[in-house]
């Protein structure tokens, strides 16, 4: 237990935890694949303007062309290059995934932690609000809010997904908080004169990093799928280039009839791949929050 005398001065604990967490994730085979795939998508998204052969909205090409050397995946019914759209689409999906996933995670962290920490009436009130959000049907609510805010572009989509998607995470974090709250170090912090917000966010929160990270990747996956669904239903902003809108236009211009297989296949596959990469990363994170889930066999 005792540390060697020559131990190097440790990193700030949060950073050290992060580094340790990343290392644990990296050692997990599935999670490593997930990180690599996600990394590829991020590179694709960041470098989209340089990688993509054309401007995704350049509609000066022939309509509904089949794949060729100029247009690997053909063109859309409006004469845009499918490959370029696919590459640029990664930006929106990542933006929505990380944006909406991030915001809803923040909401669920703030609410979940306070909910788990406070007792009595305020707790009941939060309980009530969260239950309400859990009870109100998600996708319909999303549709209603999306129609209400229909002309704000992608930021509205992000907001809508975030607003409708935090409640479940809050519930999970609440129970974890409630159990951490009973730990002596929380009581001890109170004895050190700490105030509630600091106890919640400085003492309790860092101990749930992996749970929160897991929640974040879960929320990001859900957000990516939700964005695609909303765009597909035509309730998003059809002028942006995203995988969801690509599917919307594919359906709208009957890509199946015009033989634009790539237009139909590729965006869905990309969504699935991106979401899979996040899920794979979550396998690794599960291993951190619950060491029993780390790879291994039961020997049976």
């Amino acid at each position: 237990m005792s540390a060697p005398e020559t131990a190097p001065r440790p990193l700030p604990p949060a950073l050290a935890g992060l580094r340790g967490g990343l290392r644990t994730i990296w050692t997990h085979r599935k999670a490593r694949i997930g990180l690599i795939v996600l990394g590829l998508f991020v590179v694709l998204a960041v470098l989209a303007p340089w990688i993509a052969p054309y401007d995704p909205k350049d509609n000066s090409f022939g309509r509904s062309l089949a794949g060729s050397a100029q247009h690997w995946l053909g063109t859309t019914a409006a004469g845009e290059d499918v490959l370029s759209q696919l590459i640029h689409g990664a930006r929106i999906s990542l933006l929505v995934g990380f944006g909406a996933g991030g915001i809803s995670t923040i909401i669920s962290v703030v609410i979940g932690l306070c909910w788990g920490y406070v007792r009595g009436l305020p707790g009941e009130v939060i309980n009530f609000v969260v239950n309400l959000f859990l009870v109100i049907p998600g996708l319909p609510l999303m549709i209603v809010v999306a129609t209400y805010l229909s002309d704000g572009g992608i930021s509205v989509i992000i907001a809508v997904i975030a607003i409708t998607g935090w409640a479940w995470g809050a519930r999970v974090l609440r129970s974890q908080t409630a159990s951490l709250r009973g730990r002596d170090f929380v009581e001890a912090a109170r004895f050190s004169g700490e105030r509630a917000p600091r106890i919640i966010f400085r003492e309790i929160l860092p101990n749930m990093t992996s749970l929160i990270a897991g929640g974040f990747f879960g929320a990001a996956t859900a957000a990516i799928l939700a964005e695609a669904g909303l765009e597909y239903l035509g309730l998003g902003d059809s002028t942006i280039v995203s995988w969801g809108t690509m599917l919307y236009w594919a359906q709208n211009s009957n890509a199946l009839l015009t033989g634009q297989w790539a237009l139909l296949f590729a965006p869905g596959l990309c969504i699935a791949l991106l979401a899979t990469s996040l899920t794979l990363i979550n396998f690794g994170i599960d291993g951190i929050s619950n060491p029993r889930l780390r790879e291994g066999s039961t020997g049976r």
Partner: protein
Amino acid sequence: SLQIRSRPDPTIGPDTMLVAGDKGTPTFTANFNPFHANKRTAASILYEPLIWINPLDGELVPWLAESWDQPDPQRIVLTLREGVSWHDGTPLTGEDVDYTFRMLQDFPANDVAGAWGRIDTLEVDGRTIAITLKSPDSPALPVIGQTVIVPRHLWEGVADPSTWRNEEPVGSGPFQLGTFTALQYTLDRFPGHWQASSIDIEHLVYPAASEELDLVTKGYDWAYAYMSDVENTWMAANDANRYWFPPGGIIGLHPNHDVAPFDDVDVRRGLALALDGRQVAEVAAEGYMDEASQSGLLLPNQEDLLDPSLPERGIIGQDTQAAIAAFEKAGFTYDGTTMRTPEGEPFTFAITTANGYTDWLRAVQEVQRELGAIGIAVDIDAPQPAAYEANLSSGDYQVAVGSSNGSDAFQGFSNLMSGEYYVPVGETSQNNRIRYRSAEADELITRYRASVDEAEQSEILHALQRLFHTDLPVIALYYGGLWGLYNQARFTGWPTAEDPYAPLQTYGSSPLLVLTRLRRAQKEAS
């Protein structure tokens, strides 16, 4: 690549037509009340109007009324056809006409065309229907004439015809209701119809499943749908498949005339000159439609109404230099990258379109691109259709994409430009939502209403076209199409560009005429 071919249902006989005329959402509700917005589309051929109006050019064709007369601009006299009978065998008489109009008066919810907004008195005497209008109003004839007549003996007992669903319809049309399920209904030939000899089709089948994929794969004989890449989809799926896409309205930019700077004609002209209508049509409608004439007419349908003095048949081509000049005339400045308003701000505005109207959306995107080229930044607002309607009605927009100027040329100008309909921003109106005011337009419209002389009417229409062309109440972009798809293997006599007797709409009263003209390609060997 994999070619999708149609696979007609072999059980459908040569006397039966498969029509994609009614889309289930996803199933059908049995509502055959012809006055309802939610009626089954076939209700429009189960019941017949007094006058059939051609949606292509507004031509009036005698239908239940065999003739009419407008002795003066405030009077209409119609003569009811003889020998017409209801599906149940009861003869259709003036009493039914009288009942129908009284019913519309009592239940304004059913008065969809607003006939009683114009009728002062209505007398039916045998087959003569004499109408006095509230004011000199010669264009009231098509409005009143399109009223469908319902049987008094069946409707009289209905407590509230405006909420009645009329599930077992009895009309006078060429077809009567056969079977009805939530996913499909059929119509059967009505042998007692006054045109029975012209009805060669025995059965019509209306399935609820009428997505584009269904149209192509299920062997439909007649459909009305915008089909992307029609040559390689619809046409390629079956050798006998054909299409005909005549114009049916003008899709244009509707500036809000109560919002600066769109009240300035130079700005509107600048916008019109900056845009390449042909390119917009190309992008929005995959080249199937033409750029629209700024005459306000549907060309070529209404070629005979066109004012010959208009240059280029009223089409305003793209002329960037002229556009910039027009803007500069309005006090704008252009430095080669940014168009600035007289106040020195970069000129940006929002175009409102309805979410889900994909051709409009593509058109706006093209407009955005083209205006961007002369330094004007356009934002796109795409609220849901209901919100779009609400925004336009209340004037809560800067510029909107909209459709105007249908088959009735005068009605088109009047609805759009009449100061009579003007309401300020904040109040709602369905006509003149662009909030246009012009003394000249008002004067022309009043004159037209008071005229029953064709030559004078034509002359006024020319003046309206010139006004539309110079004052640009709406900036015409391209024609909205009437997306007719048909198969000529089993039925012939379809309307075409060469014989444009009716559009191929499967809704409204178009089918009345089309279905009575079509002939079976092969008769059964019986």
